[in-house]
């Protein structure tokens, strides 16, 4: 897993609710063999590009002041919909390392951690305030994120704390390989299976057609 400790970078406001996984990455690049590292070109395509394929100059990530954005500050239920991890790979391919929103689709939320991308939940009114500051740019358009301290620094200098599940936080800070971590518990897994095989043998498909 990729490590995440601190991030100080340009943040783009995307004040839309329910940005779904299909909007983040369409199905065609995922099912036509586009390599993971090249999915960035297809990220948020319906928002970034006009029907003729040219870049929409009004879309936030196409504007020069957000060209180097590494953080998205968006609306509620971001990443709702499909389980496609390509949604996270596509955002990562755009250079996004963190997404701030009032809430996330559950599978997307988990997929973020698996790829070293930090999803941060903050109250909707705080998110709206951040979006306003980032759009106005009076204090610049950058946010600071410190995962060790679970703190986010707004453009105006206000320090906000956020919560991340401890297990996920440690995995990100240390860049842990979750499979290797679980494999250390294999004796417990085997013991569980032995017990359940006695108790509920049908779960292990003892009667086959």
């Amino acid at each position, binding site marked *: 897993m990729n490590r995440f400790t601190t991030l100080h970078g340009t943040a783009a406001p995307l*004040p*839309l*609710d*329910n940005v*779904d996984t*299909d*909007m983040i990455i*369409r*199905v*065609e690049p*995922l*099912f*036509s*063999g586009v390599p993971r590292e090249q999915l960035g070109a297809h990220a948020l395509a*319906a928002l970034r590009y006009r*029907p003729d394929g040219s870049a929409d100059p009004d879309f936030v990530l196409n504007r020069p002041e957000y060209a180097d954005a590494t953080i998205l500050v968006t*609306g*509620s*239920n971001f990443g*709702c*919909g*499909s*389980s*496609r*991890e390509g949604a*996270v790979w596509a955002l990562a391919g755009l250079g996004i390392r963190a997404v701030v929103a009032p*809430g*996330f*689709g*559950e*599978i997307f939320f*988990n*997929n973020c951690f*698996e*790829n070293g991308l930090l999803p941060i939940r903050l109250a909707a009114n705080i998110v709206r305030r951040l979006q306003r500051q980032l759009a106005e740019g009076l204090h610049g358009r950058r946010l600071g994120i410190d995962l060790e301290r679970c703190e986010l620094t707004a453009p105006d200098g206000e320090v906000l704390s956020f919560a991340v*599940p*401890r*297990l996920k936080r440690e995995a990100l800070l240390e860049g842990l390989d*979750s*499979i290797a971590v*679980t*494999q250390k*518990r*294999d004796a*417990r*897994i085997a013991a*569980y*299976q032995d017990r*359940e095989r006695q108790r*509920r*043998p*049908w*779960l*292990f*498909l*003892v*009667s*086959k*057609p």
Partner: protein
Amino acid sequence: MPATLFDKLWTRHVIESLDDGFALLHVDRHYITDAGGQHLAALHRRGLRLRNPELCFASPDHAIGTAPGRIGTTEHGLRYLADLRREARRHGITLFDVDDERQGIVHVMGPEQGLTLPGSLVVCADSHTCTNGAYGALAFGIGASQFLHVAATQTIVLQKPRTMRVWLDGRRATGVTAKDVMLYVIGHLGTAAGNGYAVEYAGPAIRDMTMEERMTLCNLAVEMGARCGLISPDDATFEDLRPRPYAPKGDDWHRAVADWRALPTDPGARFDVELTIEISEVAPQITWGTSPQHVVGIGQAIPVDVGGGRNTVEAAQAYMGLRPGQSLEGLPIDYVFIGSCTNSRLSDLRAAAAVARGRRVAPDVTAWVVPGSRAVSRAAEAEGLDRIFRDAGFEWREPGCSMCLAANGETVPAGKRAVSTSNRNFVGRQGPGARTHLASPAMAAAAAVTGRITDVRQLSILP
């Protein structure tokens, strides 16, 4: 202490409690779609072994073509299939291949084969895995990384969700299906209402539902944002399971049923959130926008954007080519798709066929029926449903996911309007620029034969 179905499922699967409400849980069934070949290849490249291949079941569904004879499967679809075959062989996984009588959309195939059992934990790298919760299984979608974790360890690390009960009160009116009920619930609660929750559906309306209807309900749990949808198992569940190929047999069957009878939520068990929704006034539903929560009863006007700064209603209506406040009834349509893990089972096809019988698909409308599995298509053919559809001018296709997500290149063209029995009306879901209205199979068939969005209750249907 009284416990909920979810609490019991959770407790049964905990191998080890971890920090912060997380637990290491045992996975009993791992379903694998044709996208899984890639993940299994990645597992092999990492030098990892599949821990319990006997608990994994694969069937191609997303990327294969559904034209008769699978003609026109894309080059990439064929590659996915080749990958899945190679990896299934390599890892020793049971594969229900395209020529197998058991092939189907995994969430149709699993319950059909008796693989999804009450009290089991089911995962699949597909968000609609929640469908399997209809059997009283803890079932949820996972991502590609979690797929590798499950494959290598037969476990998953999950933070315990909170519990919600949605109590459906009242009886459904005639012509109102499980799909309508659930679209209404999503419209009422919103697509984020279930975030962080395991949702159990309960109440008299549930007890009246067949297993296929319960699957439609649980299938859409993810569209209200839930981790999983659940229904307490009952006699209907057990009767449904008994003849299924992989269901327990002999003594095991009796032991299993005794075990399953302990699963339903106990009287007096506490949920973190309890909601009651009255469904007797619910009409057939139809979506108007680009989120499943954008839904109205047929005949109702679609909303007028009241502002709020995010323009989501306005943007959705612009994408869909609709005017604020208009009614959808009578709106001309171009495509009809009857299929998907939401509504592609035998009872769905029967409901659609009852409308199609003796009628013709309207000129200029393309209408497809894509059964959820080979078993569904065989059963439908035995009843002559395929004939009814063909005679009416529908295309009768091979089982798969098809136009629901258009991963296999089967799309609704840009700007065209489709009535679809699937689960998502997202921007471009059925193809770039495609406009999707979600509805029940009967409503979709009614749209096909009239060429317009139609209240199916206004068509005479012979029993």
